């Protein structure tokens, strides 16, 4: 009976003191009844291994004791979707504020190469703290009230407008046209007139020469992606895969180009203008890299959801 006593003691340790003796006594009687029934069936005393197997089947002491707790979950099914929505919103807001603050600091230092290292607290720490704070807030709503308010006090008229509509054919044509114009301009087929005032003009810096062919290939690929989206809009998965590859390629090219720190020569303007343009373009390209990576992540998320939904429905898209 040593095993049984140890088991019941382990269960008892996890129970509130007020009901410990009562619950343990009842469980002891139940387990002894089970042992007796089993021994009657076998016609012999139970072995230690058999008793051990029976206790394992009865359940881990933490689980058995846990069933007697009033609180069975930190966040229940009613509040869970709110926790998830709050968490997503909080993480996006916090990450955006963090990146903007880091960019402002980097701008004031004039060093953009390691701009996320400019803030004392790391982004991961901030996100983990946000996760904990939102989870605690949701658990507090679950435990100490506010649940009814959250669930019932809302107005349909305050819901956000419908979004996520697939782009129209007109938008797809426009996207393809813009990509073709970019390709033509990069290849030297299309020219734009100088729109700068006072005889100031912009010339491409040396860095672009090294990236001519990769960017040309990218521009052709972008046109192909736009074309597929236009003529085969139903090929959702293919379009998403193409977009993920396209965005990551763009992020890689922009991320490499931004290291140069100098992209156009502003001919005929003071040096201060040149410095401002360079800084502005570094920020713009850095945000472009971030946008491409986030866009690729969003497309990957959509692709995963399409795959999951197809698997649940048991049919391909």
């Amino acid at each position, binding site marked *: 009976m040593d095993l049984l006593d140890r088991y019941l003691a382990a269960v008892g340790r996890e129970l509130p003191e007020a009901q410990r003796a009562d619950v343990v006594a009842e469980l002891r*009687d139940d387990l002894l009844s089970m042992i007796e029934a089993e021994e009657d069936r076998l016609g012999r005393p139970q072995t230690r291994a058999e008793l051990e197997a029976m206790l394992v089947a009865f359940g881990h002491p933490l689980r058995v004791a846990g069933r007697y707790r009033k609180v069975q979950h930190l966040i229940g099914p009613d509040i869970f979707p709110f926790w998830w929505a709050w968490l997503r919103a909080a993480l996006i807001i916090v990450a955006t504020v963090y990146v903007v603050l880091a960019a402002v600091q980097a701008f004031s230092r004039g060093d953009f190469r390691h701009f996320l290292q400019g803030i004392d607290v790391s982004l991961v720490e901030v996100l983990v703290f946000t996760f904990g704070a939102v989870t605690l807030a949701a658990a507090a709503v679950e435990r100490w009230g506010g649940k009814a308010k959250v669930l019932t006090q809302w107005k349909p008229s305050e819901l956000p407008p419908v979004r996520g509509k697939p782009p129209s054919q007109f938008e797809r044509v426009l996207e393809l046209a813009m990509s073709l114009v970019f390709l033509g301009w990069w290849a030297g087929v299309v020219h734009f007139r100088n729109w700068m005032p006072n005889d100031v003009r912009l010339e491409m810096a040396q860095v672009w020469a090294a990236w001519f062919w990769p960017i040309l290939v990218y521009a052709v690929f972008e046109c192909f992606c736009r074309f597929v989206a236009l003529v085969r809009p139903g090929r959702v998965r293919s379009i998403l895969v193409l977009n993920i590859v396209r965005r990551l390629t763009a992020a890689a090219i922009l991320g490499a180009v931004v290291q140069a720190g100098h992209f156009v020569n502003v001919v005929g303007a003071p040096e201060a203008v040149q410095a401002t343009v360079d800084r502005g373009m570094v920020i713009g390209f850095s945000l472009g890299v971030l946008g491409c990576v986030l866009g690729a992540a969003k497309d990957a998320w959509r692709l995963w959801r399409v795959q999951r939904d197809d698997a649940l429905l048991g049919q391909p898209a």
Partner: protein
Amino acid sequence: MPNETDIFESLRLELRRGSLILAVLGHLRSEHYGYSLRTALAEAGVEIDEGALYPMLRRLEAQGLLVSEWREEERRNKRFYRLSPLGSETLARLVVEWRALNRSLDGILDGEL
């Protein structure tokens, strides 16, 4: 990804979970201690995990639907449960609800199967 058997098992458990309280209350019209109740339920075709049964009995007692007392039987102290007057009344209402639900479901499913 859960397979077909997992999905069926999870749905089956969900379906049975709601009816367990009814089965327990129904059996406790006569007095039982935990093990005898579980055995009686199993013989009637209603399997219940002991880890779920005892907390459920406590909860039903705290709600005033059951009464219990410790008594010695077969040389051991056992806790005996039975329906309280409130429990009997609640059971009667739940049975009406259950039969109405069954009729509705039969009406739906008989046309389908």
